[in-house]
């Protein structure tokens, strides 16, 4: 963007005339407010152009068409040809343009000037900024400590992860820490099936979807794809109807649209899943043939003791009697029966578990129990069950052997504690990072690069994270708008908006077919911002040595077409032209026909840019083998190895039924906290997305659009709880937990149980641009930081006391 002086700018505008608005009053106001460096309102011939790209406000990556008038983006809408989102968008998508032109975007790299957190910054060039990171990295590698470099990454783009991992591996650091909320789910699947990637639910063909806290219609998984799929099954003239059921403590929007909802006490989802397995056994609805052939430990427990060499069936029968399950979960036996029967008598049932059910103290047990429930109905490797996750056959450079320095570095312990402070099967432990940094364990860090994550705001114990960062030599934060973590960093690197950058996005996980979306820039970067991948390439080259050799010459955009060539060479799938097109192409392919496509890789790239996505139609045939890892022959119902690892880790005896027994004990011990009688339930909304999207006016005003609340947080309180506390709607209430307290407005609603209150995450920023700062409160202030050793994640669970503030 050329920098015009204000005077020049106003003169040109006066001469050119204005298309922007028809009201003279408005145009005066519009131009009186224009300032240097911001985009100008469209003027000139009014030539319209649409560019297909991807929305990257959340990890899902819906197809987007951006409308440009005279080269400036003025509107956007869902891309109907995208095979996943099919024209749909969630509210966050519509804020993409406001985020692009956010007035507080970081315009140049900034170097800290004064003590950390002082808020004094000096603009520096990209060369200076990247050199400041590269110099200590070169030095520490020369001293044989390449592991003193860590990257904390959001992790919603597989290609970005690929390049981070490749360069770090060449350099010799094992410390790529991904803020993975899916970790409990992933590690549970790894335990059961021995696979690295959790499989995907074939929602389009399931006829009964049971969700354990999985907010399919709000923020979990790919919400727009899930909503589209769900909507199709609800079509007025659908050939087939599917039912949905929900298990959880809060009657969330997803629960609201379930045909059958069963309320359980917070943290007892695992008990309910096992109770349903019990119903299947009692009613002879379990898939015995599947269990006999493909699971281990159903009839007898291999090498077990204690819990009786009993098999899973006998264990569930003896320890999860329905009266017991009912007592622990609070759901009546009749409801458990009704849900179990409906699930078991469906032809293609499927159970999902979401972060809401997996982030508690017994999250891992919940994931295991829900997988066991799926095993009990044989929902593995079959249409309408779990099938292998889709990916994209992109051309990636072959892996390189690390040199000797790198090998030594890679063999050192991870700085987040994954694998040594947690169970060995945990690969990412974001929650362990802060504690280890503060203690300089297992070694001090020279450089920490943070991208797309804001731990000071998003993780429990924000203050302690700030302190932990003080123990790191250099903290560099990559972001478009400076957030709380950037405030206490040494360097801020301005990241380009997704509307200014290139990316190819294969499905992260959870999509049952192969797909790749193309994100392409709709305009040149407005400021001196860069795409993260570009600055990463540049940094690698500056570090030199094997890191530099690991990245290709040129920019990220130069490299992408060669990756896309893999899609062309694969000789299957098609450039997407809408759902109808994909179906026809799949139909033809099954019968040995191939729809004519581009002949050369170059022509393919051009077509790909025009369409915005590539898709390989879902396969019709599945087998359970596609879900099993290389070394696994059957699905493990008992995590024997895990328990052995747990014994080694803690050095204490771990009971044979530690997993589900622990869940039982936790549920039984949940009652009777007189000081803090209420559970705190945290939830996300499609406008706030846990805080990453809520920085623009349109979304902040919609923060509580269902509640008729704007620009504020709220606490959901059951009418009975409110009556006891003499609380009325709109009152200011104080929530106190052992870890902290906050004040928010009361909203009285029957969607929460009487023994809990609920709050949305995402507001309460102390430093996140002019709009979001100071809006609402952050409920994570109530949660004490605690590491779940089974999953490496934080335990987002606490109890609170509720009092009304004097008027």
């Amino acid at each position: 963007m050329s920098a015009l002086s204000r005077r020049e700018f106003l003169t040109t505008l006066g001469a050119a005339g204005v298309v922007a608005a028809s009201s003279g009053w408005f145009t005066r106001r519009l131009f009186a407010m224009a300032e240097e460096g911001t985009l100008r309102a469209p003027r000139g011939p009014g030539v319209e152009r649409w560019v297909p790209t991807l929305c990257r406000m959340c990890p899902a990556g819906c197809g987007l068409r951006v409308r440009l008038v005279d080269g400036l983006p003025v509107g956007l809408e869902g891309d109907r040809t995208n095979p996943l989102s099919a024209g749909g968008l969630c509210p966050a998508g519509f804020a993409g343009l406001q985020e692009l032109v956010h007035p507080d975007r970081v315009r140049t790299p900034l170097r800290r000037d004064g003590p950390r957190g002082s808020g004094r910054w000096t603009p520096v060039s990209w060369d200076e900024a990247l050199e400041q990171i590269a110099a200590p990295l070169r030095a520490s590698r020369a001293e044989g400590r390449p592991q003193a470099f860590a990257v904390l990454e959001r992790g919603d783009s597989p290609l970005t992860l690929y390049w981070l991992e490749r360069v770090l591996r060449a350099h010799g650091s094992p410390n790529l820490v991904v803020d993975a909320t899916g970790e409990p789910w992933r590690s549970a699947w790894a335990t059961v099936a021995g696979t690295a990637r959790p499989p995907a639910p074939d929602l389009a063909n399931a006829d009964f979807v049971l969700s354990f806290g999985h907010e399919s219609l709000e923020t979990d998984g790919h919400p727009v794809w899930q909503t589209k799929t769900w909507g199709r099954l609800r079509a007025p003239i659908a050939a087939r109807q599917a039912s949905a059921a929900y298990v959880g403590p809060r009657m969330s929007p997803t629960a609201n649209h379930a045909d059958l909802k069963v309320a359980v006490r917070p943290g007892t989802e695992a008990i309910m899943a096992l109770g349903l397995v019990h119903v299947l056994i009692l009613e002879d609805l379990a898939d015995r043939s599947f269990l006999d052939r493909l699971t281990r430990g159903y009839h007898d427990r291999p090498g077990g003791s204690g819990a009786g060499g009993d098999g899973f069936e006998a264990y569930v029968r003896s320890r999860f009697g329905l009266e017991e399950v009912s007592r622990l979960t609070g759901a009546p036996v009749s409801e458990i029966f009704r849900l179990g029967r409906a699930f078991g008598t469906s032809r293609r049932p499927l159970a999902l578990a979401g972060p809401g059910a997996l982030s508690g103290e017994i999250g891992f047990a919940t994931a295991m129990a829900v997988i066991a429930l799926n095993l009990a109905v044989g929902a593995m490797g079959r249409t309408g069950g779990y099938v292998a996750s889709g990916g994209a056959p992109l051309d990636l450079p072959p892996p390189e052997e690390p040199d000797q320095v790198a090998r030594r570095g890679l063999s050192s312990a991870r700085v987040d504690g994954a694998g040594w402070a947690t169970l060995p099967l945990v690969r990412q432990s974001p929650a362990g990072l802060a504690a280890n940094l503060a203690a300089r364990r297992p070694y001090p860090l020279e450089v920490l690069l943070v991208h797309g994550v804001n731990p000071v705001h998003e993780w429990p114990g924000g203050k302690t994270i700030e302190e932990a960062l003080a123990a790191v030599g250099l903290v560099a934060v990559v972001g478009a708008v400076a957030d709380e973590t950037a405030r206490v960093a040494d360097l801020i690197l301005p990241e380009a908006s997704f509307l200014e950058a290139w990316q190819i996005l294969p499905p992260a996980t959870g999509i049952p077919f192969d797909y790749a979306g193309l994100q392409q820039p709709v305009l040149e970067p407005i400021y001196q911002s860069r795409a993260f991948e570009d600055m990463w390439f540049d940094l690698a080259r500056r570090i030199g040595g094997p890191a530099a050799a690991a990245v290709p010459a040129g920019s990220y955009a130069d490299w992408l077409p060669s990756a896309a060539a893999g899609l062309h060479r694969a000789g299957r799938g098609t450039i997407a032209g809408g759902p109808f097109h994909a179906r026809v192409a799949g139909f033809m392919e099954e019968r040995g026909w191939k729809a004519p496509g581009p002949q050369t890789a170059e022509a393919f790239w051009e077509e790909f840019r025009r369409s915005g996505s590539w898709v390989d139609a879902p396969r019709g045939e599945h087998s359970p083998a596609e879900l099993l890892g290389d070394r696994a022959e059957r699905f493990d119902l008992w995590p024997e190895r895990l328990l052995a690892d747990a014994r080694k880790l803690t050095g204490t005896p771990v009971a044979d039924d530690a997993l589900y027994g622990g869940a039982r004990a936790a549920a039984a011990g949940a009652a009777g906290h007189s000081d803090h009688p209420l559970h705190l339930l945290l939830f996300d909304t499609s406008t706030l997305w846990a805080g990453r999207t809520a920085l623009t006016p349109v979304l902040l005003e919609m923060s509580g659009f269902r509640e008729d609340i704007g620009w504020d947080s709220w606490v959901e309180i059951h009418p009975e709880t409110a009556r006891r506390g003499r609380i009325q709607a709109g009152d200011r209430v104080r929530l106190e937990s052992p870890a902290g307290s906050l004040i928010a407005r009361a909203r009285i609603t029957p969607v929460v149980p009487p023994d809990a209150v609920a709050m949305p995450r995402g507001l309460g920023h102390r430093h996140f641009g002019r709009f979001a700062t100071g809006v609402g409160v952050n409920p994570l202030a109530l949660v004490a930081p605690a590491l779940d050793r089974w999953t490496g994640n934080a335990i987002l669970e606490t109890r609170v006391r509720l009092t009304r503030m004097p008027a």
Partner: protein
Amino acid sequence: MARWGMVIDLDRCTGCGACVAACKVENNVQVVSPAEGERGRRMHWLRLLVEARGEYPHVEVRIAPNLCMMCENPPCTKVCPVHATYRGEDGLVGQIYPRCIGCRYCMAACPYSVKAFNWGSPEWPEALLSTLNPDVSMRPKGVVEKCTFCYHRLQLGREKARAEGRPLRESDYQPACVHSCPADAMTFGDLDDALSPAAQLSRSTRATRALEHLGTEPRVFYLEKRDAPL
């Protein structure tokens, strides 16, 4: 002339809010300050009506998108002293901003409460101005505004059809809220065209209209929720 109308399937609507955001951005509806918002001056051309019924855990939250019903017999046009709100030749209820004197009679007359009053001048942070939709004019302080069924899209669609020398198709004209609904809960089209999905749905046994007994003849139909198949 086409009789444009909308059908909203409440069985499919998840209340995600995409239509609310789409409308806000498409029509340059101003974002009022938080303090003004607290005084009930928040502006939406489309908002969700939400009502929770029942006792935990048997709660049913009923959600209905609420927008201008484009009545065939609109109460608002009859009370306007200056003919600022009127029913156009294609039957859509319009609002002429320069003519509006801000008396708000129409707001009082509208049984659906879908009209919004500009209590203050629209304030946009300068940086956000460039992203405003150039097809929709801004409204000054003191006038009433409301949903137009994205009338500017109809105009663009007509121009496009004329340029291509063909009749206007339904796909040329879809309001912003309908286009991006992730649940495909909204259908828009010509209610007089027997082949139009919107017309067919509007004749469904589940179809109903808000406050039908008032005789306003709304062109927005709601399909009632179905009973659980379980």
